[in-house]
Structure formats: C-alpha cells, structure tokens
C-alpha cells in the first residue's frame, strides 16, 4: 500500500488539482508543491479568487454565458450590434470568438450539440431561448458558429428548421483551409469543402 507523504489536507488538494483538465496526479503534485511554497503570494489570493468566483458566478439568463453578473458583460454591452446573434456550442467557443475580436453582435450559448450517443436531445439544449430572442426583436441575422462535425451541423440544421418561420437570415461559418494550413496535411473532407467553397481571387 502506498504511504501518504503529506497530511490529508495536502493530499486532498493534490487530488482536487488532479481533476483539472491537463493535470494528472504527477503534475497536480507539482502544482500543489508550488502553491505550498508560495503560500502567501499565490495560494491565498488563488483561494480567495476561487471562493469569490464561486460565490458570484451565474449563468446569463439572456444568452447562457457564464459571468459574475446577469445579464452578462456581453449582453449588457451597448456597443454590440443587436441585429446579429451568434450561436455557439459552449462558453469556450464564445471566448474563442471573443479572443479573435471579430464578432460585433451578441451571442447565444447552446450548452452542447445534439448527440444521441451522449443522450443529448433538443430538450437538453438552450434552444427555446433562441426562438424567444429572435421573435419580435431587432435580430436580422443568426450566425451558426457551430463545430464542423456531423453533430454540430445536425444541430445547425435543427436550429435552421426552428427559425424557418421567423424569416430571419441564417448563416453558418465557412469551411476550408485554416490559416497556416498546408494542403498536404489536410484531410480529404476539409480539402473537398475548401474546393467546393472556393471564391474569386
């Protein structure tokens, strides 16, 4: 039987850190040791930040984003174009688009995509909110920024069907060669999509 090398408090810290994405037991042990070494200037502020975030974090009642205020910072921003609604799968995708700084409109977070194998059907997604937001509002275009996977695009088709009666313009992201991508390394599906979606140059 493996003998504990530290007290239960530190062991528990290591176990919890090991649950984080990208960290295994070994790297969790290193992170814990680092925190222990820098108790005052890192561990304490980190613990306070986690406690504070835990207390204040809420899901935006408008778009489904995660923030410490409701409506979230994005929804409350008056400089955003209210005529464009970008539908994303999860908060990570919203953050990715915000990092790129290319979206001027507002967002709607679905909370996943339709996936029978994972038991995710339309009821498990934030779909009804889209209809409510589009109907009787100034939204003129809904951009379906969903993953280029069969599950993602099935969800996109489903949303398109839901929005059909509203008459709003529905668009999706383009498929093709990524920036820095070399054709030799691309899969056949991406190459085929890129050729099909070629544009005048």
């Amino acid at each position: 039987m493996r003998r504990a090398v530290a007290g239960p408090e530190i062991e528990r810290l290591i176990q919890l850190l090991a649950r984080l994405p990208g960290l295994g037991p070994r790297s969790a042990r290193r992170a814990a040791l680092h925190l222990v070494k820098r108790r005052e200037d890192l561990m304490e502020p980190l613990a306070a930040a986690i406690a504070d975030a835990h207390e204040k974090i809420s899901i935006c009642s408008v778009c489904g984003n995660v923030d410490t205020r409701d409506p979230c910072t994005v929804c409350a921003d008056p400089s955003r174009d209210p005529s464009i609604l970008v539908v994303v799968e999860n908060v990570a995708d919203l953050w990715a688009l915000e990092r790129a700084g290319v979206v001027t409109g507002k967002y709607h977070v679905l909370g996943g995509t339709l996936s029978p194998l994972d038991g995710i059907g339309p009821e498990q997604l934030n779909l009804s909110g889209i209809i409510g937001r589009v109907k009787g509002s100034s939204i003129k275009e809904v951009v379906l920024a969903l993953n280029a996977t069969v599950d993602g695009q099935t969800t996109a088709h489903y949303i398109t069907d839901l929005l059909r009666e509203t008459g709003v313009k529905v668009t999706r992201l383009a498929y093709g060669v990524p920036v820095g991508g070399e054709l030799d390394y691309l899969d056949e599906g991406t190459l085929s999509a890129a050729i099909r979606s070629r544009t005048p140059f």
Partner: protein
Amino acid sequence: MEWTDEGIVLGVRRHGEAHTLLELMTAKHGRHLGLVRGGISSKLRPILQPGNSVRAVWRARLDAHLGAFTVEGMQLRAERLMLSAIASYGIHTLAALLRLLPERDPHQDIYHALAEIADHLDDPDCAAALIVRFELMLLAELGFGLDLSECAGTGATEDLTYVSPKTGRAVSREAGEPWKDQLLRLPAFLLRDCGHSAADVAAGFKLTGFFLARHVFEPRGIAMPEARAALIATVTRGAIAA
C-alpha cells in the same frame, strides 16, 4: 484478442481529455464499441465522424473487454453529409436504429445496406426512401418482418395497397377497401423499383414507424429518435415547397 474489419462510424463520445469512445457498425463483428487513443487529435477527428467508412483494428486482452480501436479512414463522407439536412438527420436516424441491434452481433446484410445508403444520403431524391427500406429490413432482422408478398385476404399478388396493422401483412386495394381507414398505406416503392413522391415516403415512414414503435421502441421503453421526426418533417416540407 485482435481482429481487423471495415466499419461505418455511428457515433463518437469523448472519453477523458484525449481519447474517444467509438461506435462502429462493422461488416463482420456487428455494432462494436471501443476506445480510440488520441481520438480528439486533429488527425483523427475528421475520420471519426458519423457516416465515414474506416478500416479498424480492434485489440483487447480478453474478448469481454471494451478494447481499443486503431482506425484508418477509407471513405470520408461526413463533409458531404453535414451539408444536407436530410443526410445529417438521416445518419443520426440510422445510428439510432442500429443501436436497437445487440452489440457484437454480426448483421452483414444490414452493414452492406448501410454502406449503400451512406453513399446516397446526400441525394435528396432517394435518401429518405432508402431509409424507409432500411427500416423494413431492420424490422425483419429484429424478427418483426412484414409480409408484403401477397394479400392477406385474397392471396392476390397485384395491386397491394395497404398493410394490416394487426398482422403486418399486405392487403390488396379491393380487399382492403371496406377497412381502408383502419389500414396503413403501402407505398408502391416498397414493393418494386419505381418513382416515389414525398407523400409516398411519408406513408412509408408511417408504416415502418408504426411497427417499430409497437414491436421495438415501446416494449423497450425508449422513445423514437428525434432525428427521425426531423427527417420526416424535412422531407414533408420539401414536398410542400415543391
């Protein structure tokens, strides 16, 4: 334990941070699940999409284990399929129907039919009709096949227009006339190769849906796949638009 087989991807579920759980319909080993190490990598993700054909090597220490797949793409259809609503709903419908079959139980005819349908799923003229035929085939594979060879009442083999919901046997137009409101319509494309309208396809789905619900979904306490309803709605809407 180790085997190599070809298969069609039915679904993928993330397993941990880097791996995926792959569900394949294989030619010789039936519906089979296995772990794909590094399945979320940019190299494997385009291959592990529903509808794609792959060559898979399955390895496990014991036959009862989940085991691990090593896959290589053979025919990548996903890019075509996800552009079409009928194809997207279609592949999810087919995957949901195939989950009615027991795991690791070979069904070679079903596999070959699936491969044939997957090639034509993005063809709006025939995709839905092929799925109706597939549902009939699946009913037979599950032991609830319909007898569409002759009229249950008269033995006639011509002008078969209805199916009895009680027996699952065909009924001719003449014999079924007095009870036509209680009988299910039998579209002609299920009897012979001929053209079909969206109304015929919808009637076909109603027919197979009735028997699938009665013999398979309801006894097992599971709901009809959402994708199937979306597929039927898309086919019907296409007919109205036309």
